[in-house]
Protein backbone atom coordinates (compact mmCIF):
# COMPACT_ATOMS: atom_id res chain seq x y z
CA UNK A 1 0.00 0.00 0.00
CA UNK A 2 1.35 3.40 -0.92
CA UNK A 3 1.45 5.97 1.84
CA UNK A 4 -0.25 8.49 -0.45
CA UNK A 5 -3.19 6.04 -0.84
CA UNK A 6 -3.52 5.64 2.92
CA UNK A 7 -3.68 9.42 3.36
CA UNK A 8 -6.10 9.78 0.44
CA UNK A 9 -8.40 7.14 1.93
CA UNK A 10 -8.43 8.27 5.53
CA UNK A 11 -7.14 11.84 5.55
CA UNK A 12 -4.12 11.00 7.67
CA UNK A 13 -1.52 8.31 8.29
CA UNK A 14 0.56 7.17 11.21
CA UNK A 15 3.94 5.57 10.73
CA UNK A 16 6.52 4.05 13.02
CA UNK A 17 10.18 3.26 12.66
CA UNK A 18 12.42 0.27 13.22
CA UNK A 19 16.19 -0.09 12.84
CA UNK A 20 17.57 -3.26 11.24
CA UNK A 21 19.79 -5.33 13.55
CA UNK A 22 23.51 -5.12 14.02
CA UNK A 23 23.80 -8.78 13.17
CA UNK A 24 22.54 -11.46 10.84
CA UNK A 25 19.40 -12.44 12.78
CA UNK A 26 16.39 -10.28 11.92
CA UNK A 27 13.93 -11.83 14.38
CA UNK A 28 14.06 -9.16 17.12
CA UNK A 29 13.70 -6.29 14.65
CA UNK A 30 10.87 -8.13 12.95
CA UNK A 31 9.13 -8.63 16.29
CA UNK A 32 9.47 -4.91 16.96
CA UNK A 33 8.01 -4.10 13.53
CA UNK A 34 5.13 -6.50 14.28
CA UNK A 35 4.37 -4.73 17.56
CA UNK A 36 4.55 -1.29 15.90
CA UNK A 37 2.29 -2.45 13.07
CA UNK A 38 -0.52 -3.07 15.55
CA UNK A 39 -0.70 0.71 16.03
CA UNK A 40 0.53 2.28 12.79
CA UNK A 41 -0.20 2.16 9.04
CA UNK A 42 3.38 1.69 7.90
CA UNK A 43 6.82 1.20 9.42
CA UNK A 44 10.01 2.96 8.31
CA UNK A 45 13.10 0.79 8.04
CA UNK A 46 16.21 2.92 8.53
CA UNK A 47 19.33 2.77 6.37
CA UNK A 48 22.43 2.80 8.52
CA UNK A 49 20.95 5.48 10.76
CA UNK A 50 23.59 7.60 12.45
CA UNK A 51 26.07 6.10 9.98
CA UNK A 52 26.16 2.91 12.06
CA UNK A 53 26.63 -0.26 10.00
CA UNK A 54 23.57 -2.48 10.28
CA UNK A 55 21.68 -5.00 8.14
CA UNK A 56 20.60 -3.53 4.80
CA UNK A 57 17.03 -2.28 5.26
CA UNK A 58 15.78 -4.01 2.11
CA UNK A 59 16.01 -7.39 3.89
CA UNK A 60 13.86 -6.29 6.82
CA UNK A 61 11.45 -4.50 4.47
CA UNK A 62 10.94 -7.72 2.47
CA UNK A 63 10.46 -9.81 5.63
CA UNK A 64 7.85 -7.29 6.80
CA UNK A 65 5.99 -7.51 3.49
CA UNK A 66 5.80 -11.28 3.95
CA UNK A 67 3.89 -10.56 7.17
CA UNK A 68 1.64 -7.94 5.55
CA UNK A 69 3.39 -5.06 7.31
CA UNK A 70 3.74 -2.02 5.03
CA UNK A 71 7.39 -0.88 5.00
CA UNK A 72 8.71 2.57 4.19
CA UNK A 73 12.13 1.65 2.93
CA UNK A 74 14.68 4.33 3.73
CA UNK A 75 17.59 4.77 1.39
CA UNK A 76 20.54 7.14 1.71
CA UNK A 77 23.07 8.58 -0.73
CA UNK A 78 25.95 8.14 1.69
CA UNK A 79 27.20 4.68 0.78
CA UNK A 80 26.30 4.11 -2.86
CA UNK A 81 26.98 5.81 -6.15
CA UNK A 82 24.32 6.60 -8.75
CA UNK A 83 24.56 3.16 -10.35
CA UNK A 84 23.96 1.34 -7.06
CA UNK A 85 21.25 3.76 -5.92
CA UNK A 86 19.21 3.25 -9.09
CA UNK A 87 19.82 -0.52 -9.00
CA UNK A 88 18.51 -0.61 -5.43
CA UNK A 89 15.37 1.35 -6.32
CA UNK A 90 14.61 -1.30 -8.95
CA UNK A 91 15.45 -4.10 -6.52
CA UNK A 92 13.21 -2.67 -3.81
CA UNK A 93 10.27 -2.52 -6.19
CA UNK A 94 10.93 -6.08 -7.38
CA UNK A 95 10.75 -7.22 -3.76
CA UNK A 96 7.38 -5.57 -3.24
CA UNK A 97 8.38 -2.29 -1.60
CA UNK A 98 5.98 0.52 -2.50
CA UNK A 99 7.30 3.41 -0.40
CA UNK A 100 10.85 4.75 -0.37
CA UNK A 101 12.09 7.56 1.85
CA UNK A 102 15.06 9.26 0.26
CA UNK A 103 17.71 10.86 2.44
CA UNK A 104 21.25 12.11 2.01
CA UNK A 105 22.28 10.22 5.14
CA UNK A 106 24.36 10.99 8.20
CA UNK A 107 28.07 11.49 7.57
CA UNK A 108 30.30 8.52 8.35
CA UNK A 109 32.38 10.40 10.91
CA UNK A 110 29.28 10.43 13.14
CA UNK A 111 28.97 6.66 13.08
CA UNK A 112 30.93 3.50 13.85
CA UNK A 113 32.96 3.36 10.61
CA UNK A 114 34.40 6.90 10.46
CA UNK A 115 37.13 5.77 8.04
CA UNK A 116 34.66 4.67 5.37
CA UNK A 117 34.80 6.37 1.99
CA UNK A 118 32.07 8.99 1.77
CA UNK A 119 30.17 8.64 -1.50
CA UNK A 120 27.52 11.39 -1.61
CA UNK A 121 27.68 11.33 -5.42
CA UNK A 122 24.02 12.30 -5.53
CA UNK A 123 22.15 14.24 -2.88
CA UNK A 124 18.58 13.63 -1.73
CA UNK A 125 17.14 16.22 -4.14
CA UNK A 126 18.96 14.65 -7.05
CA UNK A 127 17.95 11.09 -6.11
CA UNK A 128 14.31 12.21 -5.89
CA UNK A 129 14.72 13.61 -9.41
CA UNK A 130 16.22 10.33 -10.58
CA UNK A 131 13.36 8.31 -9.05
CA UNK A 132 10.81 10.53 -10.80
CA UNK A 133 12.68 10.03 -14.05
CA UNK A 134 12.65 6.26 -13.49
CA UNK A 135 8.88 6.43 -12.94
CA UNK A 136 8.81 7.96 -16.39
CA UNK A 137 10.69 4.95 -17.74
CA UNK A 138 14.26 6.27 -18.00
CA UNK A 139 17.40 6.08 -15.88
CA UNK A 140 19.64 9.00 -14.97
CA UNK A 141 21.78 8.50 -18.07
CA UNK A 142 18.69 8.65 -20.28
CA UNK A 143 18.50 4.94 -21.07
CA UNK A 144 15.05 3.38 -21.32
CA UNK A 145 14.03 0.95 -18.56
CA UNK A 146 12.40 -2.34 -19.57
CA UNK A 147 9.74 -1.58 -16.96
CA UNK A 148 9.27 1.74 -15.18
CA UNK A 149 9.53 2.31 -11.45
CA UNK A 150 6.33 2.80 -9.44
CA UNK A 151 7.81 3.49 -6.02
CA UNK A 152 6.15 6.27 -4.04
CA UNK A 153 9.09 8.42 -2.94
CA UNK A 154 9.18 10.59 0.15
CA UNK A 155 11.48 13.32 1.42
CA UNK A 156 12.53 14.61 4.81
CA UNK A 157 12.81 18.07 6.31
CA UNK A 158 13.91 19.42 9.70
CA UNK A 159 11.39 22.14 10.67
CA UNK A 160 13.32 23.02 13.83
CA UNK A 161 16.76 23.14 12.25
CA UNK A 162 19.11 26.08 12.70
CA UNK A 163 18.15 27.79 9.48
CA UNK A 164 14.48 27.27 8.64
CA UNK A 165 14.68 29.46 5.56
CA UNK A 166 17.23 27.15 3.96
CA UNK A 167 15.24 24.08 5.03
CA UNK A 168 12.19 25.50 3.28
CA UNK A 169 14.22 26.29 0.18
CA UNK A 170 15.49 22.73 0.02
CA UNK A 171 12.03 21.29 0.73
CA UNK A 172 10.68 23.23 -2.25
CA UNK A 173 13.38 21.68 -4.39
CA UNK A 174 12.40 18.23 -3.14
CA UNK A 175 8.77 18.84 -4.00
CA UNK A 176 9.77 20.10 -7.44
CA UNK A 177 11.86 16.94 -7.80
CA UNK A 178 8.72 14.84 -7.39
CA UNK A 179 8.62 13.97 -3.68
CA UNK A 180 5.20 12.44 -3.02
CA UNK A 181 5.18 12.61 0.75
CA UNK A 182 7.24 14.32 3.47
CA UNK A 183 8.37 13.16 6.89
CA UNK A 184 9.92 15.55 9.38
CA UNK A 185 12.63 15.41 11.98
CA UNK A 186 11.21 15.50 15.52
CA UNK A 187 8.86 18.41 16.26
CA UNK A 188 8.67 19.89 19.75
CA UNK A 189 7.24 23.35 19.12
CA UNK A 190 3.69 23.14 17.66
CA UNK A 191 3.42 26.92 17.17
CA UNK A 192 6.66 27.05 15.19
CA UNK A 193 5.50 23.97 13.29
CA UNK A 194 2.24 25.68 12.30
CA UNK A 195 4.22 28.64 10.95
CA UNK A 196 6.53 26.25 9.14
CA UNK A 197 3.58 24.51 7.49
CA UNK A 198 2.13 27.82 6.35
CA UNK A 199 5.38 28.74 4.67
CA UNK A 200 6.00 25.27 3.23
CA UNK A 201 3.04 25.46 0.77
CA UNK A 202 2.96 21.71 0.24
CA UNK A 203 -0.26 21.84 -1.77
CA UNK A 204 -1.53 18.24 -1.93
CA UNK A 205 1.68 16.51 -0.82
CA UNK A 206 1.01 14.94 2.60
CA UNK A 207 3.39 15.70 5.45
CA UNK A 208 3.85 13.50 8.51
CA UNK A 209 5.18 15.31 11.57
CA UNK A 210 8.02 13.58 13.40
CA UNK A 211 7.32 12.66 17.01
CA UNK A 212 9.96 11.33 19.42
CA UNK A 213 9.01 10.33 22.96
CA UNK A 214 11.76 11.66 25.20
CA UNK A 215 11.85 9.35 28.18
CA UNK A 216 14.48 10.91 30.46
CA UNK A 217 16.23 14.24 31.03
CA UNK A 218 19.46 12.51 30.03
CA UNK A 219 17.98 11.48 26.70
CA UNK A 220 16.82 15.07 26.16
CA UNK A 221 20.28 16.43 26.81
CA UNK A 222 21.82 13.81 24.54
CA UNK A 223 19.40 14.65 21.74
CA UNK A 224 20.04 18.37 22.04
CA UNK A 225 23.77 17.86 21.95
CA UNK A 226 24.01 15.12 19.35
CA UNK A 227 20.94 14.82 17.13
CA UNK A 228 21.02 17.41 14.38
CA UNK A 229 17.95 19.55 13.85
CA UNK A 230 16.35 18.51 17.15
CA UNK A 231 15.58 20.88 20.01
CA UNK A 232 14.02 19.37 23.11
CA UNK A 233 12.61 22.39 24.97
CA UNK A 234 13.21 23.04 28.65
CA UNK A 235 9.53 22.52 29.59
CA UNK A 236 9.81 18.91 28.43
CA UNK A 237 12.98 18.37 30.44
CA UNK A 238 11.34 20.00 33.46
CA UNK A 239 8.30 17.71 33.36
CA UNK A 240 10.54 14.68 33.03
CA UNK A 241 12.60 15.88 35.99
CA UNK A 242 9.48 16.29 38.11
CA UNK A 243 8.26 12.76 37.32
CA UNK A 244 9.21 9.72 39.39
CA UNK A 245 12.12 7.91 37.72
CA UNK A 246 10.01 4.78 37.16
CA UNK A 247 7.23 6.86 35.60
CA UNK A 248 9.33 8.92 33.20
CA UNK A 249 8.76 6.73 30.13
CA UNK A 250 4.99 7.12 30.53
CA UNK A 251 5.30 10.89 31.08
CA UNK A 252 7.57 11.19 28.04
CA UNK A 253 5.05 9.26 25.92
CA UNK A 254 2.24 11.50 27.16
CA UNK A 255 4.22 14.64 26.28
CA UNK A 256 4.84 13.17 22.81
CA UNK A 257 1.10 12.54 22.47
CA UNK A 258 0.27 16.09 23.53
CA UNK A 259 2.68 17.50 20.94
CA UNK A 260 1.19 15.12 18.36
CA UNK A 261 -2.34 16.34 19.12
CA UNK A 262 -1.20 19.95 18.71
CA UNK A 263 0.55 19.44 15.38
CA UNK A 264 -1.94 17.05 13.77
CA UNK A 265 -4.43 19.78 12.71
CA UNK A 266 -1.64 21.33 10.63
CA UNK A 267 -0.51 18.21 8.75
CA UNK A 268 -1.59 14.83 7.41
CA UNK A 269 -0.19 12.48 9.99
CA UNK A 270 2.52 11.45 12.38
CA UNK A 271 5.81 9.69 12.04
CA UNK A 272 6.50 8.27 15.49
CA UNK A 273 10.11 7.40 16.23
CA UNK A 274 9.85 5.37 19.43
CA UNK A 275 13.60 4.60 19.50
CA UNK A 276 13.19 0.87 20.01
CA UNK A 277 10.35 1.16 22.55
CA UNK A 278 7.21 0.12 20.63
CA UNK A 279 5.37 -0.40 23.94
CA UNK A 280 5.13 3.41 24.25
CA UNK A 281 2.86 3.71 21.21
CA UNK A 282 -0.50 3.07 22.92
CA UNK A 283 0.24 5.83 25.48
CA UNK A 284 1.37 8.28 22.77
CA UNK A 285 -1.68 7.61 20.62
CA UNK A 286 -4.08 7.80 23.58
CA UNK A 287 -2.62 11.17 24.65
CA UNK A 288 -2.94 12.34 21.04
CA UNK A 289 -6.61 11.33 21.02
CA UNK A 290 -5.94 8.77 18.30
CA UNK A 291 -6.62 5.56 20.20
CA UNK A 292 -8.65 3.14 18.11
CA UNK A 293 -8.78 5.47 15.14
CA UNK A 294 -7.01 2.94 13.03
Amino acid at each position, binding site marked *: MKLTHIVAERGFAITGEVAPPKGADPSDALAEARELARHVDAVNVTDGQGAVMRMAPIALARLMIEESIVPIWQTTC*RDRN*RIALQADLLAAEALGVQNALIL*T*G*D*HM*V*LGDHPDAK*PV*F*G*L*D*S*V*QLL*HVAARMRGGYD*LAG*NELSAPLHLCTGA*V*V*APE*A*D*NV*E*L*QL*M*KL*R*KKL*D*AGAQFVQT*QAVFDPAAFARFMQRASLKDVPLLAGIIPVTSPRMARFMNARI*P*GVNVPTWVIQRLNEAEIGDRARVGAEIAGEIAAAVLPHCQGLHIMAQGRPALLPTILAAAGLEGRR
Partner: protein
Amino acid sequence: MQQTLPLPLTHLVGLIPEGARVFVLGCGDCATREHFGGPEECAAAAEALAAQGISVTGHYAPPEGEGICDLRVARAAVAASAEALEQADLVLLLSCPQGAPAVERATGRTVLLGTQVVVGGETGGGRRSVDECSFCDRCIARETGGLCPHSFCPKNLINGPCGGSQGGRCEVLPKRPCVWELIHRRLKAAGKLSILEGYQEPVSFRPPGTEDVGGTR
Protein backbone atom coordinates in the same frame (compact mmCIF):
# COMPACT_ATOMS: atom_id res chain seq x y z
CA MET B 1 46.32 24.37 -14.18
CA GLN B 2 42.78 24.14 -15.30
CA GLN B 3 41.40 24.87 -18.70
CA THR B 4 39.36 27.89 -17.87
CA LEU B 5 37.55 30.35 -20.09
CA PRO B 6 36.28 33.84 -19.38
CA LEU B 7 32.52 34.21 -19.13
CA PRO B 8 30.79 36.21 -21.85
CA LEU B 9 30.37 39.89 -20.97
CA THR B 10 26.57 39.72 -20.91
CA HIS B 11 26.75 36.89 -18.39
CA LEU B 12 29.16 38.88 -16.22
CA VAL B 13 26.91 41.91 -16.23
CA GLY B 14 24.01 39.73 -15.09
CA LEU B 15 25.99 38.51 -12.08
CA ILE B 16 26.65 41.98 -10.73
CA PRO B 17 23.94 43.40 -8.44
CA GLU B 18 22.44 46.75 -9.41
CA GLY B 19 24.62 49.65 -8.26
CA ALA B 20 27.47 47.48 -6.96
CA ARG B 21 31.01 48.82 -7.35
CA VAL B 22 33.39 46.29 -8.77
CA PHE B 23 37.13 45.67 -8.58
CA VAL B 24 38.56 43.35 -11.25
CA LEU B 25 41.29 41.01 -10.04
CA GLY B 26 43.31 38.53 -12.08
CA CYS B 27 45.85 35.80 -11.40
CA GLY B 28 49.52 35.59 -12.34
CA ASP B 29 49.52 31.83 -12.79
CA CYS B 30 47.71 29.94 -15.54
CA ALA B 31 45.19 32.80 -15.95
CA THR B 32 48.00 35.03 -17.20
CA ARG B 33 49.66 32.26 -19.21
CA GLU B 34 46.42 31.19 -20.84
CA HIS B 35 45.10 34.72 -21.23
CA PHE B 36 41.88 34.60 -19.26
CA GLY B 37 42.96 36.64 -16.23
CA GLY B 38 46.25 38.41 -16.86
CA PRO B 39 46.85 42.19 -16.76
CA GLU B 40 45.50 42.73 -20.27
CA GLU B 41 42.33 40.71 -19.70
CA CYS B 42 41.69 42.48 -16.40
CA ALA B 43 42.08 45.89 -18.02
CA ALA B 44 39.83 44.83 -20.90
CA ALA B 45 37.15 43.47 -18.57
CA ALA B 46 37.25 46.67 -16.46
CA GLU B 47 36.81 48.75 -19.58
CA ALA B 48 34.02 46.59 -20.98
CA LEU B 49 32.10 46.63 -17.69
CA ALA B 50 32.49 50.41 -17.38
CA ALA B 51 31.11 50.71 -20.91
CA GLN B 52 28.03 48.81 -19.67
CA GLY B 53 27.50 51.46 -16.98
CA ILE B 54 28.98 49.42 -14.13
CA SER B 55 31.08 51.31 -11.64
CA VAL B 56 34.59 49.82 -11.72
CA THR B 57 36.94 51.02 -8.97
CA GLY B 58 40.08 49.49 -10.49
CA HIS B 59 41.82 46.37 -11.75
CA TYR B 60 44.96 44.41 -10.93
CA ALA B 61 46.74 41.21 -11.85
CA PRO B 62 49.62 39.79 -9.78
CA PRO B 63 53.05 39.44 -11.42
CA GLU B 64 53.45 36.49 -13.77
CA GLY B 65 54.02 33.21 -11.93
CA GLU B 66 52.16 34.29 -8.78
CA GLY B 67 48.90 32.41 -8.30
CA ILE B 68 46.12 34.31 -6.56
CA CYS B 69 45.10 31.09 -4.79
CA ASP B 70 48.15 31.65 -2.59
CA LEU B 71 46.95 33.76 0.29
CA ARG B 72 50.25 35.68 0.36
CA VAL B 73 49.77 36.66 -3.28
CA ALA B 74 46.16 37.66 -2.59
CA ARG B 75 47.30 39.80 0.35
CA ALA B 76 50.00 41.44 -1.78
CA ALA B 77 47.33 42.22 -4.38
CA VAL B 78 45.22 43.87 -1.68
CA ALA B 79 48.23 45.95 -0.57
CA ALA B 80 48.93 46.98 -4.16
CA SER B 81 45.37 48.20 -4.82
CA ALA B 82 44.23 49.08 -1.30
CA GLU B 83 42.44 52.29 -2.24
CA ALA B 84 40.49 50.95 -5.21
CA LEU B 85 39.56 47.78 -3.29
CA GLU B 86 38.35 49.82 -0.34
CA GLN B 87 35.78 51.50 -2.58
CA ALA B 88 34.56 48.24 -4.12
CA ASP B 89 31.54 46.21 -2.99
CA LEU B 90 32.69 43.08 -4.69
CA VAL B 91 35.63 41.55 -6.50
CA LEU B 92 35.24 40.15 -9.98
CA LEU B 93 37.86 37.43 -10.09
CA LEU B 94 39.35 36.29 -13.36
CA SER B 95 41.08 33.12 -12.21
CA CYS B 96 40.19 29.48 -11.86
CA PRO B 97 37.75 28.72 -8.98
CA GLN B 98 40.64 27.93 -6.65
CA GLY B 99 41.46 31.60 -6.36
CA ALA B 100 38.14 32.52 -4.77
CA PRO B 101 38.74 31.39 -1.15
CA ALA B 102 42.10 33.20 -0.83
CA VAL B 103 40.72 36.37 -2.42
CA GLU B 104 37.73 36.30 -0.11
CA ARG B 105 39.93 35.92 2.91
CA ALA B 106 42.34 38.63 1.81
CA THR B 107 39.76 41.19 0.68
CA GLY B 108 36.79 40.49 2.94
CA ARG B 109 34.66 41.15 -0.12
CA THR B 110 32.14 39.04 -1.97
CA VAL B 111 33.92 37.35 -4.84
CA LEU B 112 32.25 36.76 -8.17
CA LEU B 113 34.04 34.32 -10.38
CA GLY B 114 34.18 35.64 -13.92
CA THR B 115 35.35 32.40 -15.48
CA GLN B 116 34.21 28.86 -16.12
CA VAL B 117 36.21 25.67 -15.89
CA VAL B 118 36.16 23.58 -19.02
CA VAL B 119 38.41 20.76 -17.81
CA GLY B 120 39.72 20.39 -14.28
CA GLY B 121 43.25 19.37 -13.40
CA GLU B 122 46.22 20.14 -11.20
CA THR B 123 47.25 23.75 -10.89
CA GLY B 124 50.79 24.94 -11.16
CA GLY B 125 52.94 25.45 -8.12
CA GLY B 126 51.47 22.53 -6.17
CA ARG B 127 49.17 24.84 -4.25
CA ARG B 128 46.14 22.73 -4.91
CA SER B 129 43.91 22.39 -1.93
CA VAL B 130 41.26 19.70 -2.24
CA ASP B 131 39.28 21.61 0.32
CA GLU B 132 38.81 24.57 -1.91
CA CYS B 133 38.11 23.11 -5.32
CA SER B 134 36.62 19.76 -6.36
CA PHE B 135 37.43 20.29 -10.04
CA CYS B 136 33.82 19.74 -11.05
CA ASP B 137 32.75 19.70 -14.67
CA ARG B 138 31.12 23.07 -14.06
CA CYS B 139 31.58 25.66 -11.32
CA ILE B 140 28.73 26.03 -8.83
CA ALA B 141 30.55 28.63 -6.72
CA ARG B 142 29.55 31.27 -9.21
CA GLU B 143 25.92 30.82 -8.16
CA THR B 144 26.65 30.54 -4.47
CA GLY B 145 28.42 33.80 -3.76
CA GLY B 146 31.90 32.54 -4.58
CA LEU B 147 31.78 29.85 -1.90
CA CYS B 148 31.85 26.30 -3.20
CA PRO B 149 29.38 24.07 -1.34
CA HIS B 150 30.63 20.98 -3.15
CA SER B 151 34.13 21.40 -1.75
CA PHE B 152 33.35 22.88 1.63
CA CYS B 153 30.41 20.68 2.63
CA PRO B 154 31.62 17.26 3.83
CA LYS B 155 28.55 15.74 2.16
CA ASN B 156 29.17 17.70 -1.06
CA LEU B 157 25.64 19.08 -0.84
CA ILE B 158 24.96 21.41 -3.75
CA ASN B 159 21.17 21.68 -3.46
CA GLY B 160 21.03 23.08 0.06
CA PRO B 161 22.21 22.15 3.55
CA CYS B 162 21.50 19.03 5.57
CA GLY B 163 19.60 19.56 8.80
CA GLY B 164 22.68 19.04 10.90
CA SER B 165 24.34 22.35 11.54
CA GLN B 166 24.29 23.50 15.15
CA GLY B 167 24.71 27.17 15.95
CA GLY B 168 25.80 27.72 12.36
CA ARG B 169 28.61 25.16 12.70
CA CYS B 170 29.12 22.10 10.53
CA GLU B 171 28.21 18.90 12.38
CA VAL B 172 31.04 16.99 10.73
CA LEU B 173 33.71 19.68 11.12
CA PRO B 174 32.46 21.64 14.17
CA LYS B 175 35.37 24.08 13.99
CA ARG B 176 34.10 25.27 10.64
CA PRO B 177 30.97 27.24 9.87
CA CYS B 178 28.36 25.48 7.73
CA VAL B 179 29.16 26.69 4.23
CA TRP B 180 25.42 26.95 3.49
CA GLU B 181 25.06 29.41 6.37
CA LEU B 182 27.77 31.55 4.80
CA ILE B 183 26.25 31.27 1.33
CA HIS B 184 22.82 32.15 2.69
CA ARG B 185 24.13 35.17 4.58
CA ARG B 186 26.09 36.42 1.61
CA LEU B 187 23.32 36.06 -0.98
CA LYS B 188 20.72 37.48 1.38
CA ALA B 189 22.88 40.57 1.87
CA ALA B 190 23.23 40.86 -1.89
CA GLY B 191 19.47 40.41 -2.41
CA LYS B 192 20.19 37.35 -4.55
CA LEU B 193 18.66 34.54 -2.50
CA SER B 194 16.54 33.40 -5.43
CA ILE B 195 19.70 32.11 -7.13
CA LEU B 196 19.64 29.25 -4.63
CA GLU B 197 16.23 28.04 -5.73
CA GLY B 198 17.51 26.51 -8.95
CA TYR B 199 18.01 22.74 -9.10
CA GLN B 200 21.65 21.69 -9.33
CA GLU B 201 22.19 18.64 -11.52
CA PRO B 202 24.54 15.91 -10.27
CA VAL B 203 28.23 16.68 -10.73
CA SER B 204 30.15 14.57 -13.24
CA PHE B 205 32.92 12.41 -11.85
CA ARG B 206 34.10 11.30 -15.25
CA PRO B 207 37.88 11.54 -15.48
CA PRO B 208 39.00 14.27 -17.91
CA GLY B 209 40.13 12.88 -21.23
CA THR B 210 37.73 9.92 -21.31
CA GLU B 211 35.08 11.58 -23.47
CA ASP B 212 35.70 9.18 -26.36
CA VAL B 213 35.98 6.05 -24.23
CA GLY B 214 33.31 3.41 -23.64
CA GLY B 215 29.60 3.64 -24.24
CA THR B 216 26.90 1.08 -23.54
CA ARG B 217 28.06 -2.40 -24.41
